[in-house]
């Protein structure tokens, strides 16, 4: 029952979040009365609510100190790698944060992957001064990057695993740009064939968006996608090796055969 509800919560908040991202496509077609200027703020808040629900659910299963420490450390490392991005700029929209998120989600599972994605973006925003209304969008999207990595097939050979991860890196390279653009696209309020306009219908909106994306982002995102593939191809196998070694130590839970759990509870509440 709990498992089912948990899955349902994931599905609903995922759908709701997607709806928020896709708002530009269907929102204005229904009505002219909505005040488009307040929408960006409102959608940011709606995403925050989605995140809140997801994090509450994710925290539901008591998280061990090991997972907490491991997450913290991986987030720190990824954030540091992001500094490198500034020092050694890669092609286009390349960013070294996606490969670690994908790999972590792939080896450590969906929960870990989502948290890793969302928290990495949060921390690097905090330490580089990048907090803004775009942050919930980034956290949500990056969280799903980590989450979906866990759904990839897990064949036995590491080479095949790296292959699947590379595919995911390629797809997410474009997808991330595609959905992050959606956030500011209506906000940019130009009036041409490329920009969002209230009430033109979803077909027209979609074709405008595709045009906008092709013109402004395709090359940029290609850099990110190819960068992900290169990074995963290069580091994927040894990192999977290292993660797998630590996974057993991290996920381990001591089952006490000698004492009842009630004893522990009773004692911890005294004093």
């Amino acid at each position, binding site marked *: 029952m709990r498992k089912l509800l948990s899955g349902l919560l994931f599905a609903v908040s995922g759908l709701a979040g997607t709806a928020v991202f896709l708002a530009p496509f269907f929102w204005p077609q229904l009505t002219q*009365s909505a005040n488009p200027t307040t929408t960006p703020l409102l959608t940011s808040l709606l995403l925050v609510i989605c995140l809140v629900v997801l994090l509450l*659910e994710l925290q539901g299963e008591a998280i061990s100190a090991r997972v*907490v420490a*491991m997450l913290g*450390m991986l987030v720190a490392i990824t954030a540091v790698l992001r500094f490198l991005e500034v020092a050694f700029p890669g092609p286009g929209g390349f960013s070294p944060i996606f490969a670690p998120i994908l790999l972590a989600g792939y080896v450590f599972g969906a929960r870990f992957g989502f948290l890793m994605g969302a928290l990495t973006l949060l921390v690097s925003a905090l330490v580089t001064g990048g907090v*803004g209304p775009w942050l919930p969008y980034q956290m949500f999207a990056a969280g799903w990057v980590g989450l979906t990595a866990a759904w990839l097939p897990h064949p036995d050979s590491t080479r095949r695993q790296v292959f699947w991860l590379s595919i995911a890196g390629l797809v997410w390279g474009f997808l991330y740009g595609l959905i992050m653009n959606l956030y500011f696209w209506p906000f940019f309020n130009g009036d041409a064939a490329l920009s969002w306009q209230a009430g033109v219908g979803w077909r027209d909106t979609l074709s405008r968006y595709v045009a906008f994306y092709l013109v402004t982002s395709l090359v940029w995102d290609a850099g990110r996608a190819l960068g992900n593939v290169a990074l995963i191809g290069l580091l994927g196998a040894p990192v999977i090796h290292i993660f797998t070694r630590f996974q057993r130590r991290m996920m381990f839970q001591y089952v006490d055969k000698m004492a009842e759990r009630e004893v522990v509870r009773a004692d911890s509440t005294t004093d």
Partner: protein
Amino acid sequence: MPIARRIDARAWLVWVAGMLVLVMVARNPLYTLLLMLVAWWVMEVWRQNGRFPQLPFVRLGVFMLLLAALLNSLLAHTGETVLFRLPQAWPWVGGNITLEAAIMGAANGLVLFTLLLTFQGFNQAVSPGEIVRLIPGTWRDMGVVLLIAITYIPETTRQLRQIREAQAIRGHQLRGWRDWRPVVLPLLVAGLERAMGLAEAMVARGYGATADAGLSVWMQVGLLVSLTAVFGGWALTLWAATAGWLLIALGVVGLWWLSRKRGRRVLYTRYHAGWWGWPEFFVVITAVLPVLIILLPIWPVDYTTLSYTPPPQFALPAFDPWLGLSLLGMATPAWLPFILRQRQTNDSH
């Protein structure tokens, strides 16, 4: 001038929220300009707190304005003051290039730049630790993850330098992508080993003493219902605005209640309480007032000046001095430090 007394992060959050609402609602470029100047002033004052290297803001601002103006004038062809023409055959950019479109673009650029400045000021004034401490007890674990990450970023940076040096010693050179392997792998293993050690240390110091098993079923159901209410309400606003907003509010209250309920089961206290005094109170009041004035149309000001759609022929937007004056309330965090320092020097005499 060094900052004599910091302002609590919660007051800053109210200020940021106020700025966001105002920038979004007051789309008149003159008001935006005013808000931009206010944000800049605040950022300049709190830069003394000095956490981030200064970005070249003047250049950045000019660049954003010009870029937005250029893009919009190339893509939007409305307006009557034609500057020049591009051949119609050119996709998207062909047609009249007008002054009005350029100004509209610049106005949008100004909005973006103001947002950037607002968050820059916030980031300068509030340390990551202070932000993380605002995370309610319900998210204690998440908060600790963030604190660990922030604590270990300097350590990891240092380690990265050491590893690069150690590899350089064995003749390693960073020439291409491939060369990152010997640097990234030791960094990763060292970090994970440290995580294991840290986890031990945390457990030995009682971390997780009060963590209980997962969410109960009824709480999951509660979450599901609240979430559905919020998004159902959002959809409902299309047809019945009031009912929709009511539903959203209900959902939010439900979530708040559930997370409180959950938070009470996580037993822990905070060593660093915030500080709340008259300066915080003042910042909040002066940030909330302009928002109330603008959102509740009951005041004797000219609300039509808030919006600005460029007329066919270029014209200066209208400006209500009283509305402008109320926006200046947002500048409190900029001049407050001067007063606080004054008081401190008076006290010491």
